[in-house]
Structures are given as structure tokens and as C-alpha cells.
């Protein structure tokens, strides 16, 4: 393990070349660096908390050979620049709205500047102009970057997005002026204009030259102090660093930690970033027979982790698409969501319904426990000093039950749940053989409804049993009232979601989802993911 006090510069690809940055504090955001340090002001700050998308940029990394969704050898992901710390860009490429016209060459505008060639707009940009997709224009660069990501991914695959896919891709971008219809129009029109593709070769070459196997160590002063940013590349190094520096802040997607800095001015001190540990991003099926499991490395992005779950359990599609927004799901990790332990995190209810185990590591020691045991109290868990979440394991047998995940929030997209339910049920004849009822938003931690489960286990799957379970739910949970929902609403809906589960899974005349969910009218193109296309 290297922990040289000397500081390596942050090196990344930006606007056609590799840039070296040093001296900036490790928690400086990509957005502040862009706007204040290099005066690239195309990227805007709307909320400084990853919720409006005005700061959307695209980060490029070298893709694995044959990686699904890669674009010309690159993995391109939208992220919110306001909550990404600059050192996390080390070894990557940063694309902003300023990069688009640069791909397009010059042309003559017959109506203007006849003598001087003008730089052409990228098809994404031209389509936005043609479809009247901007009004005040402040959210526009963020939309353009989300659309550009969509554009490159579909061009690579030779496909075009549906209107629904476009809306889902844009769910992290707020526009207050247009009402979105013209932007969705632009998302279709951009494919009808002459194509322009990112020349990835020089980017791939630059990123290859930046490839590093050793821990990236960056440090910069804060007053008299030197704050470190460590980004190990192997699990062993991560484990060693974590043990050596148990007080350091562990950083995954920084979708929450970024807010601590931006909004609460929290002093993080040294940071250990898990983002460069490839082993931690692994998602694979392991074991066989009763021990077969889907293993999700703690560093796997929410997007990839949910995709893997949805591929095996299509009924989880809605909760996947409704988990924050694409830029958050690209940056954030399922391990981080679980470790964070918020009572309103949406992964734990799903994982608890799936009997998931959490895998913890300290040094060489690896231990596992059922997820419900991990949570002790509000934002308290069983992690010991020097220990970290290494992975999540979902038994494949649990994926064989009937599964439902219901998220209740004020808005469909990118909202924090008032409550979120993960249900699993196995019915033998008329009898409930196995039942898992996990809820977020109902208590200080996400937890299973022990008494409601007890009221159903081994009982006939009938309205009478459901009614008994509803009563038991009121014993399981004493939810709070806050700005998202009242205690009464939370409990009433939790009970009604049991009713919905029963309506959808009862043995006699189960209702199709079109009869039970208002969201069923949305033509979500989850089929591809579901079928593993």
C-alpha cells in the first residue's frame, strides 16, 4: 500500500486533452471546478443536490471488452456534476455541453454570416432548436447532455428510443418552462437529422494512457490540514486502507455524501473512494442448488444492480425506474444505499423481500448476516470500525417467489418514497407457504412486518387473512408524519398495498396489473432488460 504524502495530480480527459489538476480540495465538486476554475459556464447549477439535472454531464470510462451498452469502447454515463467530487474523475473523461458543437465541424448558414463559416450544432442541439425545446434555456444544457447520452447509446446499437424511454432517460432533468412535450419531440427528431458520432478513438487512447493499477492518492490542503483522497483499485487494498483509516469517509457514488458537503458543510476529512475497485462492481450468479445466489458487489451502480434484479424479477421494473434518476443511478451504488441505512432507501425493502444477506469485510475477515439484522436503529448499523459493506447476496430461490415492489411518493419520477414495500409470497395450493413483507418509510429503519407476516404464514390466501394481516400491520408500525405523508396515510396505504398484493396474486381470478396500477398505462420499455437483450 502506497500512502505517499506527495500528491498525484487529478488527471482526466476534458475538451480534447488530458488535464492535470492539483491544489483543489478533494471535495470540490466537478460543477464548481467547471464553472469557477476553468470558466466553462455552459453547465448550470440549479439545486446543488442532484435533483434538477441542470448540471448533467457525461462521464466516460474505458469499457470492458464486449461490454453491453459500450459506445466505441467507452462506458458513457450521465451524472450530476454538482455532487461529484473532482478527484473521482481521475482516469476518466468528462464531457460537457461545450463538447458537442466541437464534434460537428463548420458550415455556412445561408441566412447569416454568409462570409464566415459557423460551427454547426450537434443533431441533439439542432433538434432542440427545431422542436422549440428551450424557453428560458437554463435547464437546457442538462437536457442536451442527457439526450446526447441517449443519442450515442442508441446510435451505437442502431436503435431509436421510444417516447417512454426518452421520458425515463430524462427523469432526472427538470424543466419549468416547456411542459416537456417539445423536448420529447426533440428526442425523436435528433435521430432523423444527419448523424454525428463522438470520435472515441482519441478518448480511448487518452484513457488507456491514464490507466493505473495502483491506488490513486490525492491530497490538498485545507487550512493547516492536508486532506487525502484515496482511491484503491483492489479489494485487498481497500480493506487495508479501511482498517488503517477507520475514521476516513468511505465514498461510493457520493449521491448522499455530496449533499453533506454542499448543504451541511460537513467536514469529511480523509476520503476513501471505492469507485476504482473493479472487484466491488461485480454482479454474478454464484453457487449452485439451494446455495445458488445472485451476488451484487457493493460498488455496483444502482442502475446495474437493479437491471440484474429486474432481469430475474420483472415485477421490480417500476421501482428500478423510479429509484431517483438515471444520473443518480449511474453514480450511486446499491451497497451505498444499503450501508447508508436511510429508512426511506428503496433498495432495502426489495432486498429484504428477497431474503438478501449483506456481506461485510474488515481486513481479511468477511462475514454475512441477513439484511434485517444489519440495521440497529435510525441510521445505525452493525458495521464495526474499519469494516465496510463488500456485497449483497440474493438467493436465487427467493427470486422464484411472486415478487412485488410498490413505491408510493408524490411524483412518479425521482422522488423519495413516502413508503416503499417489497413483498414476496409463495403459495402452495390455497395456503401461504412463505411470505415476506418489508417496508421502508414506516419506521426508524427499513424492516419486515413480523406480525403481519405471522398473520399470513400458513394461512389460506384469502381476504379474511389479508384483513387480519392489515390489523397486524398497525402493530408492526407506528409511522411518522412528515412533509412526504402523514402517519395515517402511511399506515392506510401500507394496509392497502397488502390488499393490492392479494388482488394481484390471489389464486382465484387474480387481477392483472392494468387493473391495479395507474402506472401500467405507461409503456415502459423494460422488455429489453427483462429479456436480457
Amino acid at each position, binding site marked *: 500500500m502506497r500512502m505517499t504524502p506527495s500528491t498525484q495530480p487529478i488527471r482526466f480527459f476534458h475538451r480534447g486533452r488530458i488535464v492535470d489538476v492539483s491544489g483543489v480540495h478533494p471535495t470540490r465538486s466537478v460543477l464548481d471546478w467547471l464553472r469557477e476554475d476553468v470558466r466553462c459556464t455552459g453547465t448550470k447549477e440549479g439545486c446543488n443536490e442532484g435533483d434538477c439535472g441542470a448540471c448533467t454531464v457525461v462521464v466516460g470510462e474505458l469499457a470492458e471488452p464486449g461490454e453491453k451498452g459500450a459506445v466505441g469502447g467507452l462506458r458513457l454515463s450521465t451524472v450530476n456534476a454538482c455532487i461529484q467530487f473532482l478527484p473521482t474523475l481521475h482516469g476518466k473523461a468528462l464531457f460537457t455541453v461545450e463538447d458537442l458543437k466541437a464534434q460537428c465541424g463548420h458550415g455556412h448558414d445561408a441566412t447569416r454570416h454568409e462570409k464566415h463559416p459557423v460551427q454547426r450544432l450537434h443533431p441533439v442541439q439542432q433538434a432542440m432548436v427545431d422542436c422549440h425545446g428551450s424557453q428560458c434555456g*437554463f435547464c437546457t444544457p442538462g437536457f442536451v447532455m442527457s439526450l446526447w447520452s441517449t443519442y450515442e447509446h442508441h446510435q451505437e446499437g442502431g436503435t431509436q428510443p421510444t417516447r417512454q424511454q426518452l421520458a425515463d432517460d430524462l427523469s432526472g432533468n427538470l424543466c*419549468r418552462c416547456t411542459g416537456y412535450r417539445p423536448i420529447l419531440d426533440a428526442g425523436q427528431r435528433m435521430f432523423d437529422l444527419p448523424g454525428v458520432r463522438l470520435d472515441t478513438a482519441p478518448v480511448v487512447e487518452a484513457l488507456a494512457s491514464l490507466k493505473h493499477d495502483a491506488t490513486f492518492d490525492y491530497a490538498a490542503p485545507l487550512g493547516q490540514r492536508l486532506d487525502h483522497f484515496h482511491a484503491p483499485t483492489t479489494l485487498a487494498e481497500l480493506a487495508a486502507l479501511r482498517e488503517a483509516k477507520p475514521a476516513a469517509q468511505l465514498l461510493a457514488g457520493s449521491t448522499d455524501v455530496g449533499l453533506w458537503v454542499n448543504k451541511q458543510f460537513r467536514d469529511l476529512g480523509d476520503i476513501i473512494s471505492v469507485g476504482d475497485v473493479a472487484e466491488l462492481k461485480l454482479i454474478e450468479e454464484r453457487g449452485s442448488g439451494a446455495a445458488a445466489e445472485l451476488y451484487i458487489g457493493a460498488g455496483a451502480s444502482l442502475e446495474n444492480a437493479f437491471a440484474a434484479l429486474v432481469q430475474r424479477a420483472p415485477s421490480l421494473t417500476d421501482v428500478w425506474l423510479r429509484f431517483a434518476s438515471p444520473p443518480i443511478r449511474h453514480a450511486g451504488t446499491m451497497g451505498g444505499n444499503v450501508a447508508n441505512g436511510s429508512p426511506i432507501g428503496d433498495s432495502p425493502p426489495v432486498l429484504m423481500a428477497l431474503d438478501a444477506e449483506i456481506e461485510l469485510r474488515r481486513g481479511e475477515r468477511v462475514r454475512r448476516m441477513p439484511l434485517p439484522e444489519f440495521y440497529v436503529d435510525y441510521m445505525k448499523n452493525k458495521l464495526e470500525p474499519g469494516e465496510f459493506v463488500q456485497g449483497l447476496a440474493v438467493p436465487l430461490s427467493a427470486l422464484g417467489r411472486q415478487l412485488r415492489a410498490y413505491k408510493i411518493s408524490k411524483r412518479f419520477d425521482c422522488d423519495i418514497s413516502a413508503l416503499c414495500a417489497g413483498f414476496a409470497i409463495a403459495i402452495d395450493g390455497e395456503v401461504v407457504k412463505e411470505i415476506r413483507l418489508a417496508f421502508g418509510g414506516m419506521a426508524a429503519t427499513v424492516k419486515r412486518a413480523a406480525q403481519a407476516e405471522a398473520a399470513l404464514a400458513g394461512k389460506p390466501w384469502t381476504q379474511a387473512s389479508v384483513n387480519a394481516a392489515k390489523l397486524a400491520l398497525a402493530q408492526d408500525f407506528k409511522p411518522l408524519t412528515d412533509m412526504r405523508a402523514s402517519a395515517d396515510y402511511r399506515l392506510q396505504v401500507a394496509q392497502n398495498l397488502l390488499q393490492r398484493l392479494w388482488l394481484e396474486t390471489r389464486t382465484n381470478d387474480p387481477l392483472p*396489473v392494468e387493473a391495479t396500477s395507474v402506472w401500467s398505462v405507461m409503456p415502459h420499455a423494460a422488455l429489453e432488460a*427483462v429479456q436480457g437483450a
Partner: protein
Amino acid sequence: MNKPLDPSLFQSAEAFADYLTNTAARIDAKAEARAHDDGARVGISRPHESAQLHVAGEATYIDDIPELAGTLHCALGLSPVANGRLTGVRLDAIRAMPGVVAVLTAADIPGSNDCGSIVHDDPILCSGDIRYLGQPVFAVIAETRDAARRAAARAKDALDIEAQPPVLTPQDAHARGQYVVPPMHLVRSTNEGGAQAAIARAPHRLKAELDVGGQEQFYLEGQISYAIPKEGGAMHVYCSTQHPSEMQHLVAHALHLQANEVHVECRRMGGGFGGKESQSALFACVASVAASKLQRPVKLRLDRDDDFMITGRRHCFWYEYEVGYDDEGRILGAEISMVSRAGHSADLSGPVMTRALCHFDNAYWLPDVAMHGYSGKTNTQSNTAFRGFGGPQGAIAIENILDSVARELGRDPLDVRRVNFYGKGENNVTPYGQLVSDNIIHELVAELETTSSYRTRREEIAAFNAKSPVLKRGIALAPLKFGISFNVKHFNQAGALVHVYTDGSILVNHGGTEMGQGLNTKVAQVVAHELGVSFESVRVTATDTQKVANTSATAASTGADLNGKAAQDAARQIRERLAACAAARHGGEASQVRFANDKVEVNGRTLPFGTVVGEAYLDRVQLWSDGFYATPGLSWDKDKMFGRPFFYFAYGAAVSEVVVDTLTGEWKLLRADILHDAGKSLNPAVDIGQVEGAFIQGMGWLTTEELVWHPKTGLLTTHAPSTYKIPTANDCPPVFNVRLFEGQNFEDSIHRSKAVGEPPLLLPFSVFFAIRDAVSAAGEHKVDPPLRAPATSEAILNAITAVQAGA
């Protein structure tokens, strides 16, 4: 295993329209192209003048202006208490923090500590009375924005406050009789005994209450001012504001300067929606005071959370009403009290209430009506303008009443609305005495009723509901009539400057501000049309108090009406001079000279526009001009609330269909059909953008956008987009049919167009009443749903529970 989902489930009930279909349905591109070839530059769907800059990230907002050397950054220290008395401020620790240059308080303001727009009751920085949680008490000026924010965040450790319990709700303020402006009464009676007698005589009566929440503007660009000290104590302020002249005056007062020593400039805003009409002032004043004191440029850009905590928004309203009606649902008498949450100061709450009272009638003849408006003083942010400016709050009350009346009578709400419409030769005077002379609501609604298949779909919905145990659908049509003009007569004026340069290029400056609504695009079109030149020849520059003086706020939807006319006046004067010059040089009558398509036809010859301009310069003709416009025919007696406050009315209607989940209260908008009156549109694409944007924005107000103040502390807990939910792309209905009504303004407005900024904010009433219809279906339409706005899923489920209990 879960069985794979049936692929048919991924299909929506009705397919999404593609972009070509959407465009074709909205804009007649061929007709526009023909008109353009004939020389027209208005009535053309020109893209936003900054569109190419927007999409490239090259449009300059105030935070993008290159900073001058020595620029300092400001952040505000906010009160952590909602009501009380400031007894001590300890700033030494904050002054000692890294990067902090100065900490300023009210004592540092050289002029008056007030930024109130009408009533002078709005301190810039707290001078003793703590009025709301979030009130700015001091300003930190530091070398970096981060340092300023970190220091300002220590406010709660630096302030000693004797706290008192806050007054938070309009009901509470009303009960205490505490208002920011005196109560208002708008009463009209056609019968002896007035409204109460008419109600008493009516065959049926209805008495109820209604709660309608407020709304955060959520402009994507937050409040920002950048103040630069100039020689002789003068100040140059770049301010994201809808009202540069008012900023000029308030900064001058704060600095104790003359107006001619303060220069305010705004190229564009990243959205305004009313939130930057009066409330940009506090930030302009603080930045200017700091820049003046330190003699360095000072930028004050708010973090989003601070923006929520400091600034006000759309007023929430609470109503108590009683109406009497006949068997067909005709309203015979109505009495209503409206109580708004004004917040801690008057701001624009008085005018907002005036407009609310003047829009309670919406599109309906109310023979006997008594309206009472109370602007409740509360310990919350001072509420202000927001698109519609009280109009939506006034109109939604009568719509709720008619919806209830229809349900009580078992009639279709459209039929009840229709029998109440203003007449065309009778029953056509508003409660405030204005003749409704341009009524097109009958034909507009009839057309939409047909094109939306309203009646057929209502039957289909009834059939769906009969066999759907969990999900219920609902449909509603909502009409609108909206008065155009400032209710205050003297605001209805505007000025413009048009420069023609010797190369034939044209620069336009006017008093309106660009916040995304396309005002500059429309004004440029008017000038291009007047001078017969291509769009590309005309450039509109930043709104600037040194160019056009004494401007009105860009508000009340009047931007294009006023500034378009003023710019037309300026351009017309230049055109007339050019025509006279060309006729003198080339012969023929000046009145026969024609300007079109960058050519000038004079006495049988066709010359390039630039050539004629060049000749005129040589002939020493003035190639620039000012222009002025004052809306004719307006009158308003604010004490009697009587007169002709509006130049004309804009109309529109929308049909919405929703599906509601009776188990959770979740809902989804399935389809919306809109027919809106923009007169003869100056730019159909821009106007449709306004209509659609307002529809989705207003839908947010009435559904997902909920403001929650902590009932004890007065803390606004919905303080950022993480907790305050405006619509996203998935909230846009899959079927969204939007058209402009074929017609023109009966009044001589700019090219017979109509204002379009605010009126369509009433269109999403149809969403609210469609939800109400679906909720009603959950109780077999036997119980009038007690639904509040915003109709969050929780509010919907509560209403469903109530109708099921009562059914």
C-alpha cells in the same frame, strides 16, 4: 418463478404521438411559409431568439458573466426562528472565519432599509423584528462563494432571539384579524338585498370551504445579483429580474443615491414566473450595499435552499362560500370570503387579491355576488407574484362551486358551466363593471367538446368504472376567461428604442425582460415585420435602465402587448423616414414605398434594404427612434373596485382525463386536449410553448407541488427539489392535443394577438376536476368529494375514503 409480464401490458391505452404528428397538429407550416414568402414576419413560428445559444450552453446568465478582478461573494445569514425579537448579534466568530472580508447588518445600509415594492414594510436585513424563519439578518462577504456560504451558515450560533409562537396559516391570521393590507370587498347586486337575498331566494343552496395550496416558482436559475461599483458612487447591477426599473429605484433608496446613479441590466433570466418581479430586490440591494461599502464587485447568488427559505411564492388561499342556484345549476347568488397567506409583508399581496376577486367570475355571469378578500399576515416568507397573480386562485373557487353544483343536481358539470357562461348581448357585465364585449367562450368550448370527444369519452369512462374495482377514471372540461392588463392603470405603458445601422442591421431595446417566454423573439418579429427585413437582421439586447427608462415589470402577461406596440411605434417612425427619403431620391409617393423581404420597392424599382438605409444616412436621416405605447381605454377605481381594468379578455378551455387508484390515491393524467385563444398569434410555436408549459406548471400546483411548514417552528420543510416536486417528463400526458383557437383580438392589440403568459395556467383546472370526478366515481357519484389542492395522493385517498364512507 414470476411469470414474465405479458408484452401487451407495456402498451399504453393510447399510443404516444410522434414528433411529426405533434408538430403538424400544432403548426400549419405551409401556411406560415407562404406568409413568410409574402413578407410577413409575425404569425411565424420562429425559434426562440436565443435557442441556438441555449442548446450550446453559450447563453449568458448573470453567473456566467466573466467576473471582474477582485469580485467578492455574498451569502446571507438567516433567522432560525419564525417570530420574535432580535436581542443580540454576535458576529466576531463569523468575521474570523477563513476568507471572510466583511459581515454587514442593517446598520450598514446607508439609505432606507426597505425593499417593499408598494407598501414600504419589507426590511432588506432584519432590524429587530424577526418575521419568519429564513429572514436575512446579516450578509457575509467573502473571497469565495463557498467561504461566504460556510460563514453565513453559522447564523444560528450568532443570533440571540426572544422567540414567540408563529402565526402560520391564513385561518389563524384571519381569526386574529391580522392582514398586510386592508380587507377588500367587491360587491355587485342586481336585486334588492344583494347576494344573501339572492341566495336565500334560490331553489338550492350550497355552503362549503376549500383549501388551495401555494406554489414555489422554481425558476431553474435562482435569484442572483452582481453589483459593480462605478465612479462617483454610482452602481451597476446585473440582476436576474422581471423589473429592472424597480430594482433601480430600490437600490437607489438603499444607497441613498439618485435613480440616475444606478444602472440595472438583465439580458435574460433562467425563468421568472413572477418570482423575480419584486423579490429580486432584496438581493440587488444587499449586493449593492456590500459593493458600495467595500468598493469591490459583489455577487450574491443564492443556494437553492436559501432561495426557498427567503423568497415568497404563490399565495395559498382558503375559501368559505355560499351560493344559491336553480334547477339547471344557474348561480343566482354567491358570497365568498377568500383568505390568502400573504406572509410577513405586503409585497404584491394586495394586487394579487384584487386580481383574485376580479377572476372569481371566470367565464360566468354572476348576477348577485359579494366577495371579500383578506390578505392574512403570517410568519412565513412574503408571498408574491406567480404566473396568474391571483387569477387562478379566484377562478378555481367558482369552478369548484360549479363542479359541486353539478354533482348535487346529477348533471354533467359541462352543462352546468355552460348555462352560467357570460351572454353575448345580455348578462355580459363583470362584477367590477366591465363589459365582456369579446366573448368567444361558447364557440371555443363547443369546438373543444367535439374535438376532444368529451361526451363519448364520458360514457366510456362510466363503462370502465363500472367494471374496474380498484382504478377509477375521471374526465373534466374547464373553461377560462382571463383579463389582460395591469389592474393598476399607469403600469400599462412601455417604451422601446430601435437603431438601424448603416449596414442595414437593426438593434432593438425595450423595457420588457426575457425570462424564456419569447418576448424578445416576438418583439424582434414585430420590428422585422415593420421594416420588411429578415429575422436575422434584428437583434434584441439586454433590458437596461440606461436605455429605456421607467419601465413596468414584465408581468401580467403584458410583455408583448406593451413592448411590441412600443417597438412597432419606433420601427414605424424609422420606416416612414426611410420611405420619405427613398421617395425623394427615387420618385413616387412615400406612402407607396413597400418594405418586404429585405427589399424596398420604390417607384417601380427594387432596392436592397441596406442600400436604402445607406442612402438615408447620406441624406442625414435619423436612423434610430424611440417608441412609446400606453394601453387605451383603461379605468380603475380601486376603492370601489369598479371600472375597466382590462383591455380585453383571453379565453381557453381544456379537457383532461385521469385514472386514480382507490387503494393508494396515486393518479395519472392520461390525456389532455387544449384549445386556447391567443388571438392572431405572433408566433404560434412560442405561444403553444406558453400554453403547454403553463398547463404542466399549473398541474403541478394543483397536484404534486405541496408546501409544508412545520406547524410549531414555522420551518419550510419542502425546501428544495428533493422535497418539493414539480412535474417531470413522465408527467406530460402521452396524448397531449394542443391547438390555438382560430380568431383574433377584437381590440387593436399588437397585430391582433393576445397575451398568452398567464391565462393558460387555468387550463389544468381540468386535471383537478377530472381527479375529483374519478374520486366521485369511487362513491358512485353520490358524494361531493372533499378534495383539497394540491391533490396529492394522500389528499386523493382522504377524499376517496370520505366519499366511500358517505356513499
